[in-house]
């Protein structure tokens, strides 16, 4: 068979047209697709409060929002609790993968770095599991929403309760990075304001500290009434376990677990954890709505249980998607700051946190609950761990807008 010049021309024109078709439709599809990147710790000590369970919750929100005229894709990656790794992934996602919103972002040091990138690239950062109150304070920006909790809230709720109960002298065991410093600073402010004293602190290397007995003995030697744990995850469980071993709690010294999640209580077991006082903004067994949410996601994240950070990831994603539906996909994709401004304008409502609002500095407001860990006799079974002691309304639970030094509020 011989090919004429005309055949070749016709053939190539046809091939070009055929090739362009999927390309154009793919482009059109990308313009109508919101890409959510869940960036968190998938393999380290914060995996159980974030990890794949957060991806499950983000997908639950997406599923709830299906069929509104636009597509949603969920990507996920492990930042290994390292700011440099987190920054690289965030840049790659935004520059090459067309990610519109970074969700979850556990670990304060990584969160602060990713927050700067989202501002620089004008994308959205909904933080659901980092603790530092600086995200809505001195380091706040127009692209970030801080959802679940922060160090100020934990300091006020747990720290305040301990001071009211007579714990007026403190010694801190602090994880030596952004989160620990922020938690220690915020709690110290409350203690001093209530007339209490901070007798000392030790900064423990993070990660890499397994044995806290030296620090606990130093804390005990300071004769403080309360040992404040400005750390999280395995650091906190190791401290509580070893404090019980050294008989510190038996001799009347209180342990303030300033940031503790239900997964940590599960890891310690009730015989060791009973009586600890802690603050969360979500508990699976709080009311019918929280139980409903838990039933929806539980099987996909087993054997894990939703912590407040997972609830935050679900609720944050849901509210963002509501905003996108409201302002249009094109506008939401084009301008991250405008999307966040719109998120602040629309009131929030979900099964996990009920009704709430997002403040000008990016702080999501909802009630904080002070819980006491049940005794083994009080617990009806696995994961039935908390007794509600006190509820602080959203407006009082978080740092007042004027005190955060957020540039968005000052200008």
């Amino acid at each position, binding site marked *: 068979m011989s090919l004429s010049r005309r055949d070749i021309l016709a053939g190539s024109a046809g091939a070009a047209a055929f090739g362009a078709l999927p390309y154009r439709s793919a482009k059109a599809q990308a313009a109508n697709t919101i890409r959510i990147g869940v960036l968190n710790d998938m*393999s*380290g*000590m*914060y*995996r*159980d409060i974030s*990890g794949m369970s957060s991806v499950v919750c983000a997908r639950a929100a997406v599923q709830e929002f299906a069929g509104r005229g636009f597509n949603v894709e969920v990507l996920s990656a492990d930042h290994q609790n390292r700011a440099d790794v987190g920054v690289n992934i965030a840049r790659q996602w935004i520059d090459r993968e067309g990610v519109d919103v970074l969700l979850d972002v556990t670990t304060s040091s990584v969160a602060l770095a990713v927050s700067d990138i989202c501002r620089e690239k004008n994308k959205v950062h909904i933080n659901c599991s980092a603790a530092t109150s600086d995200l809505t304070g001195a380091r706040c920006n127009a692209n970030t929403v801080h959802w679940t909790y922060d160090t100020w809230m934990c300091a006020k709720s747990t720290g305040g309760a301990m001071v009211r109960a007579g714990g007026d002298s403190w010694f801190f065991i602090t994880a*030596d990075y952004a989160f620990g410093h922020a938690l220690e600073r915020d709690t110290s402010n409350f203690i001093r304001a209530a007339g209490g004293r901070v007798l000392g602190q*030790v*900064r*423990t*290397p993070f*990660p*890499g*500290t*397994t*044995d806290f*007995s*030296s*620090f606990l*003995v*130093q804390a005990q*030697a300071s004769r403080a009434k309360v040992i404040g744990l400005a750390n999280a*995850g*395995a650091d906190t*469980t*190791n401290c509580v*376990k*070893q404090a019980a*071993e*050294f*008989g510190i709690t038996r001799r009347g010294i209180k342990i303030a677990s300033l940031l503790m999640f239900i*997964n*940590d209580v*599960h*890891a*310690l*077991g009730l*015989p*060791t954890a009973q009586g600890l006082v802690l603050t969360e903004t979500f508990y699976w067994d709080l009311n019918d709505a929280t139980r409903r949410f838990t039933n929806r996601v539980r099987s996909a994240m087993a*054997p*894990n249980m939703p912590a407040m950070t997972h609830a935050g990831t679900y609720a944050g994603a849901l509210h963002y998607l509501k905003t996108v539906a409201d302002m249009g996909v094109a506008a939401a994709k084009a301008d991250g700051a405008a999307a966040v401004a719109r998120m602040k304008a629309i009131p929030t409502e979900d099964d996990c946190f009920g009704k709430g609002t997002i403040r000008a500095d990016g702080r999501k407001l909802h009630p904080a609950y002070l819980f006491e860990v049940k005794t083994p006799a009080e617990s009806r079974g696995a994961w039935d761990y908390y007794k509600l002691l006190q509820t602080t309304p959203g407006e009082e639970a978080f740092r007042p807008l004027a005190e955060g030094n957020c540039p968005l509020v000052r200008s």
Partner: protein
Amino acid sequence: MDEIFGIPTPLLFGQLLLGLINGAFYAMLSLGLAVIFGLLNIINFTHGAQFMMGAFVAWMLLHYLGIGYWWALILSPLLVGLTGVILERTMICRLYKMDHLYGMLLTFGISLILEGIFRNQYGSSGMPYRIPSQLSGAWDLGFMFMPVYRGWVVVFALFACITTWLVIEKTRLGAYLRAATENAPLVQAFGVNVPRMITLTYGAGVALAALAGVLAAPIYSVNPQMGTNLIIVVFAVVVIGGMGSILGSVLTGFGLGIIEGLTKVFYPEASATVIFIIMVIVLLARPAGLFGRA
């Protein structure tokens, strides 16, 4: 009150004692590593994961079968040691004639896989494991409260270290092992089954890691990454002590535990790095380590 460098003396004594206890863990873990390196020439990066498995098997025995701490102290090292034997027979034995790097890569890869499996199955928060009732409580030493369990750890670790050292240095079996390291074909010619001896040595090294894991379960969080933090320090201990030197790793383990303990008082921020600073200095001055043969 008497003070040394601004630190009250009783507090300092307490810290020395705690350092010694942590040193017991370093000694036990580095002992297993030194045995494996000295006799098999393999840098066993799976050691941290095997330490973790020791603790997890203790938890599993209690949780699924109701078998307590004392039996776990025997059963867990046996079971984890058995996995070590299988690992050596199926994979590691192929690498003896190759460069160290291959052994390191294989064992490092296996440790990542093992940790991943446990993380997927049990999460990263950890599992509860309590101190056995016979060892709970504390002694009042005047300068500090000393938990009975920590005392038990030191005594038991010393016993395990001395026994291992005696077996390798003073028994006929130990003599065979040392001879096989020097010249395996010759020892085999005398009728000794060298491959089986090497396999059992690896199993014993792994069992030592698991034993340390069971000892650690009641006081540290039993989670899949519990070995990762410790193993880096333990490698530094082995390097400082002299690769392959059994006595060297035991003495260095206890010594560095004490130095780390003191750093926790004087400059806590550096307590995770002090061992590596010492490692650099030792390597500059004595590249074969403190007790190693150049």
